[in-house]
């Protein structure tokens, strides 16, 4: 994952699920592409941060996680 402060695994899984639901993030299942996953996730976090007008860092920081935890509509924000 992009530069992430030492967060609990739970936060990361929550973020991953959020990005799958609303930002079309598809995780590469094969372990070979771990690093690719990291880049993809960081890219999707950038997209989400840009959508909500947050500072675009690609990092799962507290503002980004707070926004992800807001109650919201179940329709994706972006789709391929």
């Amino acid at each position, binding site marked *: 994952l992009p530069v992430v402060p030492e967060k609990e695994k739970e936060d990361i899984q929550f973020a991953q699920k959020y990005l799958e639901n609303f930002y079309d993030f598809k995780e590469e299942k094969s372990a070979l592409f771990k690093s690719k996953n990291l880049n993809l996730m960081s890219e999707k976090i950038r997209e989400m941060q840009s959508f*909500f007008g947050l500072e675009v860092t690609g990092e799962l920081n507290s503002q980004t996680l707070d926004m992800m935890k*807001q*109650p*919201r*509509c*179940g*329709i994706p*924000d972006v789709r391929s």
Partner: protein
Amino acid sequence: YSTFPLNPKWKKEDVTYRILNYTPDMLQDDVEEAIAKAFQLWSSVTPLRFTRLYSGEADIMISFASGFHSDFYSFDGPGGTLAHAYAPGKGIGGDAHFDEDENWTKFTTYNGYNLFLVAAHELGHSLGLGHSNVFGALMYPVYMARDTRNYRLPQDDIDGIQSLYGPPRKSPAKAFPSQEPTEMTPTEAPTETSPHEEPTEMTPSKPPTRADDCDPHLTFDAITTLRGEILFFKDSYVWRKSPHFTGIEHDTISSFWPSLAAGFDAAYEIDKKDQVIFFKDDQYWAVNGYNIQPGFPKPIQNLGFSKSVRKIDAAVHDQTTKKTYFFVGHRYWSFNENTQSMERGYPRKIAADFHGIDHTVDAALQKNGHFYFFHGSKQYEVDVKTKKLIRTMQSNSWFDC
């Protein structure tokens, strides 16, 4: 704003909806009202017309469900995802689902989600809008609690929906279409939430614009109290004075009562029944809040007027005596609300009983133990008990000019 890929939208202006079930969090009436108001938001800025069905397949099927509910997007318990809806299309297309594990409320509270606000957002999807990244837009994906008493559709959402359906038609509403049941089965009587009617040769080409609050020549067609507020009507416009907010709120009649958009001759409130009675030409309506009571309009002859009376100039209700005064020309009638009958000995000359009021009355109001009779740009404050004239003021003195 954004739309769905390939811009799906309804290829017709008449769109139907059906409420399949309810949340135990709210009264059924309140659920229906919240959803009807949500549809009105969109119908007031597009040519779209929404009709409610009570059985069978509607374009937009609305339901409450928890967790897995037979589509690919299970709900997730309290918080998180509150609702979702599908882009226009057949079958599930257009349908809106609300997470029953949320606490749904009629008003904006800190521990629940305002159903009107969430429904209005989801119906945006049902009509073809995607999410907007404009903070404060209705189609912004994150729930934002806000006061919905005089909620207005933000411009970004208006631009979005009009990119799909265009603006509302210019033709002003035909005056008061009959609300007779349609040929559908009584259980499917439509509830129309759009101000659109066919243009008639009588309709003016351009509706008058709203006069300034402090225009010295401002006159009113009708005035009434309504749940503690005072509503001043002129053509299709409303000036609202409320103890809950400062200043004057400007609205159009269609934003409250779309099918009564053309304006009124007279209006009065019966506060004990939470009812306002509106008059236009030889018909009258009873409304409770937004809802027009079934069985209206009715002819004013039902109140005891003879056929020769074609319209009412003004009406005012005396809460203490439970009598309502109707003003027509230089005469007035007294109607007993308890017996629902006109009192004997009327009509009488206005000037005979209300000294100093020797002209017609455009509008009338009872407030603070006084009657206020409006004629042109003047209003006359009269003591309710003695019927004596106290003082004369400008008609718009209520607007703090």
